[in-house]
């Protein structure tokens, strides 16, 4: 059993309510933090090495330290609960099961950043979670953790829940800010960054749910102690939402020292591949990160064991590695079709493109159409190169990272599974009735011996 910092108490009966949460040691970090100077809190978070848990992995303390403090201008903290990356459902789990942990982290972070009005922007479909959060906020307020003059420190803070209305793009922080202002979720050009000009042109920090919840253990144990958990620059714990063809889909907290193989096959986590099948491929960090065939998933191209942390998952770059991303772990068994799966992802990104930048607006539509025609046996060999060409023209050419997010899954699928695409083109009838199967994707890779 690894260390658990966020979900340790998630299964205590009644933990969703204030009394049980408090009796289990809840809100201690607020008591501690409100006696500290805000700058010292930021320092602790920096020392902890905590990286943004939404997908980008940017150091949270550093992000906080960028917030501008112009005289007389209010600042805001906004919690990003717009969890929408396919494969990702960890924030939902945290908010549903232990909502006070998020509220506690939000109070500490609001104090550190000087936010008197903090917003939780939650995806619109999580409608029932709004009630859970609002109840937790009311309970916190009744018990003096929110409102005016919290713990007699003179610090005032309110937390409001804002529901979105169905738009993946609003998980991008500037699109989220636009949406919070009551507009379409069109990402803004940066700079200026939200830390300088965010919601209503005020300095704003946007952090993911899990990041803000992790502030609680960081403050309770101190940044240095927190940084001792994990390995290298992957400090602390990470929530992984595991799904696809595994025996035990669900949300798991890991300390980033376990191997990918152990995560998939141990009873403590995924419990192996469902129905006794073999694994073909995996997208380890949410749908936008590169898919890896089984043989590159368990071992890096150098033949070393691959671990569930930021560095190891990205070992080999995009050529032979992937990314930790949001922790949305999607497993595909031997009977799954990579072309079809990639098609559903391309369709997703076409649906979610805001339409501002032409490479993404047009490119995602083309990728969807071409993938669909290959999947249904109507593709030409040149379509595979055309797909490659389109994704190259999207990547890096858009205002926000949705373009990259749409391009990478297509690129990785062609990079590692090109022969499956070619098989679809060469076998237009057969591909409608059966899948390409496991083929050689789990075969051991020959590692060149270096002197």
């Amino acid at each position, binding site marked *: 059993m690894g260390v658990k910092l966020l979900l340790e108490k998630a299964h205590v009966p009644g933990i969703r309510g204030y009394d049980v949460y408090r009796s289990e040691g809840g809100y201690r970090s607020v008591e501690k933090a409100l006696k500290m100077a805000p700058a010292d809190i930021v320092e602790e978070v920096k020392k902890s090495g905590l990286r943004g848990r939404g997908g980008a992995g940017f150091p949270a303390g550093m992000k906080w330290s960028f917030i501008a403090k112009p005289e007389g201008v209010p600042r805001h903290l906004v919690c990003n609960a717009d969890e929408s990356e396919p494969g990702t459902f960890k924030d939902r789990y945290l908010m549903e099961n232990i909502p006070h942990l998020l509220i506690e982290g939000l109070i500490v972070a609001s104090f550190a950043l000087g936010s008197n*009005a903090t917003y939780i922007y939650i995806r619109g479909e999580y409608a*029932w979670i709004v009630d859970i959060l609002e109840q937790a906020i009311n309970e916190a307020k009744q018990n003096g953790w929110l409102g005016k003059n919290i713990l007699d420190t003179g610090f005032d803070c309110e937390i409001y829940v804002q529901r979105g209305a*169905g738009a993946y793009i609003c998980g991008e922080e500037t699109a989220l800010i636009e949406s919070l202002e*009551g507009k379409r979720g069109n990402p803004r050009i940066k700079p200026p960054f939200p830390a300088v000009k965010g919601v209503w042109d005020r300095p704003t920090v946007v952090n993911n749910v899990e990041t803000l919840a992790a502030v609680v253990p960081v403050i309770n144990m101190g940044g240095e102690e927190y940084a001792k958990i994990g390995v290298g620059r992957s400090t602390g714990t990470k929530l992984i939402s595991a799904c696809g063809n595994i025996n035990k*889909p669900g949300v798991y907290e890991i300390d980033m020292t376990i191997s990918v193989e152990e995560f998939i096959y141990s009873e403590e986590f995924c419990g192996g591949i469902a129905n006794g099948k073999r694994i073909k491929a995996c997208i380890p960090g949410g*749908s936008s990160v590169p898919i890896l065939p089984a043989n590159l998933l368990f071992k890096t191209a150098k033949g070393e064991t691959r671990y569930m942390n930021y560095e190891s998952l990205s070992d080999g770059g995009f050529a032979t590695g992937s990314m930790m991303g949001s922790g949305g772990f999607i497993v595909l068994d031997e009977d799954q079709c990579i072309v079809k799966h990639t098609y*559903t992802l391309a369709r997703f990104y076409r649906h979610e493109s*805001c339409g501002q930048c032409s490479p993404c607006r047009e490119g995602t539509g083309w990728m969807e159409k071409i993938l669909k025609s290959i999947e249904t046996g109507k593709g030409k060999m040149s379509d595979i190169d055309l797909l490659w060409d389109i994704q190259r023209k999207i990547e890096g050419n858009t205002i926000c990272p949705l373009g990259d997010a749409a391009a990478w899954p297509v690129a990785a699928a062609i990079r590692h599974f090109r022969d499956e695409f070619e098989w679809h083109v060469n076998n237009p009838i057969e591909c409608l009735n059966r899948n390409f199967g496991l083929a050689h994707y789990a075969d051991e890779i020959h590692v060149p011996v270096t002197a």
Partner: protein
Amino acid sequence: MVKFSDDKLAKVQEIVQRYPEGKQKSALIPVLHLAQENFGGWLSAETMDYVAELLQISSIEVYEVATFYSMYNLQPVGKYLFEVCHTGPCMLRGSDDIVTYIYEKLGIKSGETTADGMFTLKTVECLGACGYAPMMQLGKYYKEHLTKERVDSIIEECKKNAASNN
């Protein structure tokens, strides 16, 4: 005529007060949700104009938002809206079979409504329930781990609810 009841108007005021003065446009998305729930499950031009007037913004500002977000229905939908996720992780767990089964059962494809106005089927993109796939959204809640049997019981439940409301 489209008009909120007094307690809904009070709710609108409460939402507006969450934002700085003069930034009431921020209330648009939550108020549109409220309007959709109250005025028949969709947003007509009349409803959108009413929301614009309430928030003292122009109608076009409401239209451009209402057309951007997928949760707003710009046409009438059935009494029960089945929004079945069909993105990658749900597809891996058999969402296509669920969509087909609903078609066999109710005779509706994505975007269609049954003749009696009871059910609408919509295939939607990832709803963040990948570990509990296949799944659908029904009103405020998720129905997860769908099987044919579970779809049957959901349909029955809806019919029963509709009958008891009449």
